[in-house]
């Protein structure tokens, strides 16, 4: 054991931080204030500021501050599998203490030249994802959802269907109900041996959330790199994580940038999302996150910065015409789909996908026209009929079919409602996949 440095003269206490005079403290090291975990966030001469994760309630100017000499770390080993842990990496499932190599969280960046290009399809069976926004291993992508949408259910659904060796859940500000939902889902599916959960519920102090993503990613890196496994990381809800960052920045007297968020928000979020990687040895980390929105506002600093970092985003939307939740084809995007569509999937995939979305856009224009009281022409009417079927058969999140079947369904819809020249697809594909006998309504 190293010599413990104990101080008892705190000069300044805010709701989240305290400042004291101490010798030899290091930026980033862990400390305990009154026994509560804290981390050094500023050292100026012998003036040291620590953030107290649980908040400073009950801290007095004479409270005891002990410096640990080392930054936050996680004990990594195969024993992590099946465990439920808190933000400090301590068990909350009543199980034994973790054992293994003590690894500092927030590890170094992977050298970009040592990364491989993510190009392995990650199929989910949901056509709104696999057809329009195909995912690959090593990708990072969030769901953008309003608080009233069933984002955690969809997230769990995707996790259960996607092929992964380990699923690591980082829950930040999770409601207790949702925590239990995840736990039940994993238990029922019989996959407890391949999950690790780092949980901060809304009952826990908000600042403890700050550790969750790094803990989650450190565990993910262990399985993906040391064990060469395919790891799927789920982070929900990143908006609540960012809110916690804003609290600390505020107490540090930092000048806020847009939406009261710290100026470093982009870098803070990027350091987490960039942990997603495809290694040449086959191991990978795929991150699927949730960013909740305020009434669909994506210009807010949190979704905005997220969008610039992640490789696309998936929008959930309630489609009133069919009464189901769909993956919005316009605003959703998977940047890495180009690496697999038409290459790992059927060659007509890119063109069919684009044609369907373009015609769906025409349908939305027709809908606006109708809402504004204008007469619809024959093309508009066909578009509207098409849109309903497209939404029901392909966009709804409850669809669960293989990709080839999605493409066949797409062709069927095109032939039912449109003429060849209206779909704008390359001639060679039309010749191959357009079967005249299936053309029913087209005039």
């Amino acid at each position: 054991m190293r010599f413990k440095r104990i101080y008892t003269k705190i000069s300044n206490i805010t709701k989240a931080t305290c400042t004291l005079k101490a010798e030899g403290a290091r930026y980033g090291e862990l400390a305990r204030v009154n026994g509560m975990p804290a981390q050094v966030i500023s050292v100026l001469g012998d003036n040291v500021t620590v953030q107290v994760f649980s908040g400073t309630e009950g801290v007095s100017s004479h409270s005891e501050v002990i410096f640990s000499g080392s930054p936050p770390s996680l004990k990594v080993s195969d024993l992590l599998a099946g465990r439920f842990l808190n933000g400090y990496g301590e068990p909350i499932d009543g199980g034994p203490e973790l054992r293994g190599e003590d690894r500092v969280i927030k590890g170094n960046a992977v050298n970009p030249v040592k990364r491989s290009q993510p190009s392995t399809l990650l199929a989910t069976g949901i056509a709104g994802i696999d057809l329009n926004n195909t995912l690959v291993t090593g990708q990072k992508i969030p769901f953008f959802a309003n608080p009233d949408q069933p984002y955690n259910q969809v997230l769990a659904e995707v996790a259960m269907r996607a092929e992964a060796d380990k699923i690591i859940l980082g829950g930040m500000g999770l409601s207790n109900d949702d925590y239990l939902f995840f736990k039940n889902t994993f238990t029922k599916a019989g996959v407890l041996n391949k999950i690790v959960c780092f949980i901060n519920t809304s009952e826990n102090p908000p600042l403890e959330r700050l550790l969750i993503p790094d803990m989650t990613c450190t565990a993910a890196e262990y399985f993906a790199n040391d064990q060469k496994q395919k790891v799927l990381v789920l982070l929900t809800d990143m908006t609540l994580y960012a809110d916690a960052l804003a609290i600390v920045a505020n107490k540090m007297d930092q000048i806020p940038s847009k939406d009261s968020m710290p100026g470093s928000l982009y870098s803070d979020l990027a350091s987490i999302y960039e942990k997603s990687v495809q290694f040449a040895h086959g191991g990978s980390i795929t991150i699927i996150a949730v960013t909740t929105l305020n009434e669909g506002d994506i210009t807010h600093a949190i979704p905005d910065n997220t969008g610039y970092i992640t490789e696309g985003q998936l929008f959930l939307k309630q489609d009133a015409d069919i009464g189901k939740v769909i993956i919005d084809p316009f605003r959703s995007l998977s940047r890495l789909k180009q690496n697999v569509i038409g290459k790992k999937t059927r060659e007509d995939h890119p063109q069919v996908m684009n044609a369907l979305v373009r015609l769906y856009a025409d349908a939305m224009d027709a809908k606006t026209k109708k809402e504004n009281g204008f007469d619809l022409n024959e093309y508009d009417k066909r578009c509207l009929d098409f849109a309903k079927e497209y939404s029901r058969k392909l966009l709804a999140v409850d669809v669960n079919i293989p990709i080839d079947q999605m493409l066949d369904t797409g062709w069927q819809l095109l032939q039912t409602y449109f003429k060849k020249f209206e779909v704008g697809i390359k001639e060679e594909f039309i010749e191959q996949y357009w079967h005249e006998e299936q053309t029913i309504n087209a005039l």
Partner: protein
Amino acid sequence: MNTGKVTGVISNLIFIEAHGAVTQNEICLIHTENKRLMAEVIRITGTQVSAQLFETSMTIKMGSLVDFTGRMLEVELGPGILSKKYDGLQNDLTKMSGLFIDMGQTTPPLDSDVYYSFTPLIKAGETLHAGDWLGSVKENWIDHKIMVPFVLKGTYTVESITKKGDYLINDVMAVLSSEKGEKIEVTMVQKWPVKRAISTFRQKIRPNKILQTGLRVIDTLNPIAEGGTGYIPGPFGTGKTVLQQAIAKNSKADILIMVACGERANEVVEIFTEFPKLTDPDTGRTLDEKTTIICNTSNMPVAAREASVYVGMTLAEYYRAMGLKVLILADSTSRWAQALREMSNRMEELPGPDAFPVELPATIANFYSRAGLTELNNGAWGSVTFIGTVSPAGGNFKEPVTESTSKVARCFYALSQKRADAKRYPAIDPIASYSKYLDYPEFVENTDTSIQKGWVAKVKKCKDLIRNGLEARDQISILGDDAVPVEYHVVFWKSEMIDFALIQQDSFDDVDMNTSLERQQYMFNKLMEIGDMEFHFSEFEEVGTFFKQIINILKQMNYSPFDSSQFKKHHKELEKALQNMREKTLTEL
């Protein structure tokens, strides 16, 4: 060497008590247990020095020793830069060991063990100035000039020059003597501080010649000139990166410098994977042979973001001094601005708009001004063309980085969310975007001879056609399809035709991704011919049906290799459809 000791740490801002004189922007090295961490001095108050650390600060102890190097951040210039993958401080990433980048790891930017075949270009006794060519070596397929070091001021006489042969970069290639008789040994390598422009040229003139990018919406409608500047702002998901990579792959530049500044690591991985496989359309060599990539991805140290764009620009200027056409792309300059903001914030400076430092506009203007078309001392021409992307917060162009950039960049490629949503790629807004080069008389004159007489006037006419089309569309959507004259539909559909056949381009299709200027000229003339045609339709639904057919044929033409049998087949179809329409119009009139 001056020294100091660490007195404080807030994230990557380090406070140092210095013993002795310290220079602004000087590089200092902070001692940790077994490493030296690099930092740049950014503020001096008496003996108190603030420095931005190019690493994470977790291991720094109070009282650690600091060495001040007396030098600013420099790059090493010499053969071997091409095909390299550097980090933001010009460390060669390929030479690093391990999967992860260990803190404080440095690697040499050039290869000291590679022989280059040297051919002298001058003789002993000649008088020279900084930047003059001493000789030439082959770097991949490029004639890499070995120059009189840029730092030398005044006139120099060549004492001796090495004979033709194979040499290492650190061998002495020439000995020069100054006016005072001082002898200087010149190797293939020289150093230059990145924040200073290399300005050993005779003059910088207004850009006048189109730099072909292969993208129709740029080359035809909003051309960028050799030595010009452009910027691409756009909300996320509008295709900034795809667009920039398309420009990189197809542009007719001799040298390509790509700076990935605070962006996704997988994007540079894509470049690493694809460029060695792609053929440069101009030379037939692989694309990575003329490319250098500088990557400071978003999880790499924030302070090195600023360095990365300056390193890129300095390398570009270096190749310009060899009489080459250099294109530098930086994605994204907003991340660099944010890095400046983070630091300014930690230093508790009074902020400007959106908490950015007040000097942001000046910093950006200065940087863009380093691009340009230059005449070298020996009469050769070299150019640096710069295109930067901007990531405006919330997709709102009324924010400091976009606004500051708009004042200096001459081409504006606005990416529109609406177009991206409708999958109309590239999502460049045809009306909001502009190229100021279209108004340069020297540029107009140049296109008159290099493309065709009256080209620019025709381009402007096309833009009017698009503008009229959009106005017609607004009228139609306000008043309804049948409440407006059928003519409005014709105007609207003519603009849709331009949109689908000219502006939209499939970056993922082998043929459509790159359109030669010759082909662009051909198709543009064809489109304008249709744009000029008079039509007579009895009702509005006929208009859409006719134009959808035309658009479909035009798209099939775009997907077919130029002048191939397929292309000709579709071309015939087009002529037939147009002929039918002409006859129909005649009979009905």
